[in-house]
C-alpha cells in the first residue's frame, strides 16, 4: 500500500511530462527543424505551406512519402526529401499530431474576383468538363477527413502550384485521383479554386 502511495506522484509527474502544452513542445528540436521553414506557429512561409490545423493522418502520410521519394515535385525534392530523411516513425507520428492541433489562420491571399467561380467548381464540379466536385472528398468547409487534406485557408500560391504540378505529371503521394482531376482543369479553373480555398476558415 505504502509503495503505491509513493509511486502515485511519480506516475503523475510522468504523465504531465508527456502531455505537454504546444508552447513547451515548441522547444523540441524536431519541431524547430520544421518551423524554421514552415513558420514559428506553422502558419506557412512561402513556399512552405501551413501545417497548423492540417489533418494528422495527411501530414504523417506525406512525411512517409517524402522519405520514400514518391512525392517528387521540385520543392519536395529539394527541401523535404532531406528534411524527412532521418525521422523515426515515432517522430513522424508525434510531429503530425502536434501540427494538427495548432490553430490555423487563413491565408486570404487569392484573387477576390475569382472566389465565386472557385466556389461553384468546389461544390458542384464541372460535369461537362468531367471535373468532379471537390466537396465530395474534401468536405463542405474543405476541412478534409482521415488522410484527405484540409484545404481551407491554405496559401493561394501553394494550392495553385500543387494543382499545376499534378497536371504536369508529378506524382501524388497516395495515388489517384488528383493527377487525373487536376489534368482536366484549365489555368483559370485552378486560379479560381485556389482563390476560393485561400479565403476559407
Amino acid at each position, binding site marked *: 500500500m505504502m509503495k503505491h502511495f509513493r509511486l502515485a506522484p511519480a506516475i503523475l509527474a510522468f504523465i504531465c511530462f508527456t502531455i505537454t502544452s504546444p508552447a513547451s513542445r515548441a522547444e523540441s528540436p524536431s519541431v524547430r527543424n520544421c518551423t524554421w521553414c514552415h513558420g514559428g506557429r506553422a502558419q506557412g512561409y512561402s513556399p512552405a505551406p501551413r501545417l497548423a490545423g492540417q489533418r494528422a493522418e495527411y501530414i504523417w502520410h506525406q512525411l512517409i512519402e517524402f522519405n520514400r521519394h514518391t512525392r517528387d515535385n521540385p520543392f519536395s525534392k529539394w527541401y523535404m526529401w532531406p528534411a524527412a530523411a532521418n525521422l523515426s516513425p515515432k517522430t513522424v507520428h508525434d510531429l503530425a499530431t502536434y501540427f494538427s492541433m495548432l490553430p490555423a489562420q487563413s491565408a486570404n491571399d487569392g484573387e477576390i474576383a475569382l472566389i465565386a467561380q472557385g466556389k461553384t467548381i468546389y461544390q458542384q464540379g464541372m*460535369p*461537362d468538363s*468531367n471535373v468532379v466536385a471537390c466537396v465530395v472528398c*474534401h468536405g463542405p468547409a474543405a476541412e478534409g477527413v482521415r488522410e484527405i487534406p484540409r484545404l481551407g485557408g491554405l496559401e493561394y500560391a501553394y494550392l495553385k502550384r500543387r494543382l499545376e504540378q499534378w497536371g504536369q505529371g508529378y506524382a501524388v503521394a497516395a495515388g489517384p485521383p488528383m493527377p487525373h482531376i487536376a489534368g482536366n482543369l484549365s489555368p483559370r479553373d485552378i486560379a479560381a479554386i485556389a482563390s476560393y480555398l485561400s479565403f476559407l476558415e
Partner: protein
Amino acid sequence: MNAFPMGSSIMIFVRHWQRRTLGALSLQATILAAAFATVGPANAVDSGAASQADLQAKIGYCQDCHGSSAQGYRGYLPIPRLAGQQPGYLENQLRAFIEHRRTNNIMFNVAHTLSPAMISGLAAHFRGLHPEPLGGAPRELVAAGENIFQNGVPDANIAACAACHGPQATGTGQIPRLAGQLYPYVIKELVNWGKERGQNPTIPDTSAIMSPVAHSLTKSQIEAVAAYVSYLK
C-alpha cells in the same frame, strides 16, 4: 516562314489571338485548341451512340470519386462501389437522380448531363469490374450480419435479404448487388432510406419495397448487415 502575304497575315492574327486568349502556348497547341474550340460540346448533339472517347472520358470522371476500379472510396462522404453492380440498378439510379426520385445534389449534377446511351455504356462498363472489396468494417459484427442477411428477422417481420438480393448478395435486375459495398455507405442508405429515395410523389418507384425493411431494422442490425455484405466478394 511562309512566303505568301496572306499566310503571314493569318499567322499574325493567330499569334495575336493566342496571346490574348490562351497565353504562352506553343503554336501547335494553339492550332489544336482552335480546332477543338470549333467542334462544340459533344453532348449538344445527342446522336444516340456515345462515342468511345466520350465514354472513356466519362468513365475516368466517375472513377475520380468512385475509385480507380470503381471499388468505392471513403471520402468526406462514403462513395459507393459501382464495380460489379447490376446494370438495371445502376441505370435506374442515374435516372432517379435526374427525375428527383432520389435526392442527391452531387449526383444530380453528374447525372443530368448524361445521355441514355452514355448511361447504358457506363452501366455496362462498371458491371465488368471486379476489384477486391474495400473492407474496414468491424469484423465482430459479421456473424450477426450473416444471420440477418440469410434468415431475416422473423420477430420483426423482416424478410431475409438473400430472398431478393441473392444468397451471395449479387442482386438481379433492378435489385442491387450488395457484395463488397462500402460499410458506411450501406448504413447511410438504410438509415436515410425514407429521406433519400422515392422522393418524387408523381413517379413512384421500386425503392418503396425497401421502406418497411429499412424502417424496421434497428441501427445495430443495420450495422451488422452492412459489415457482413461489405466483405462479400
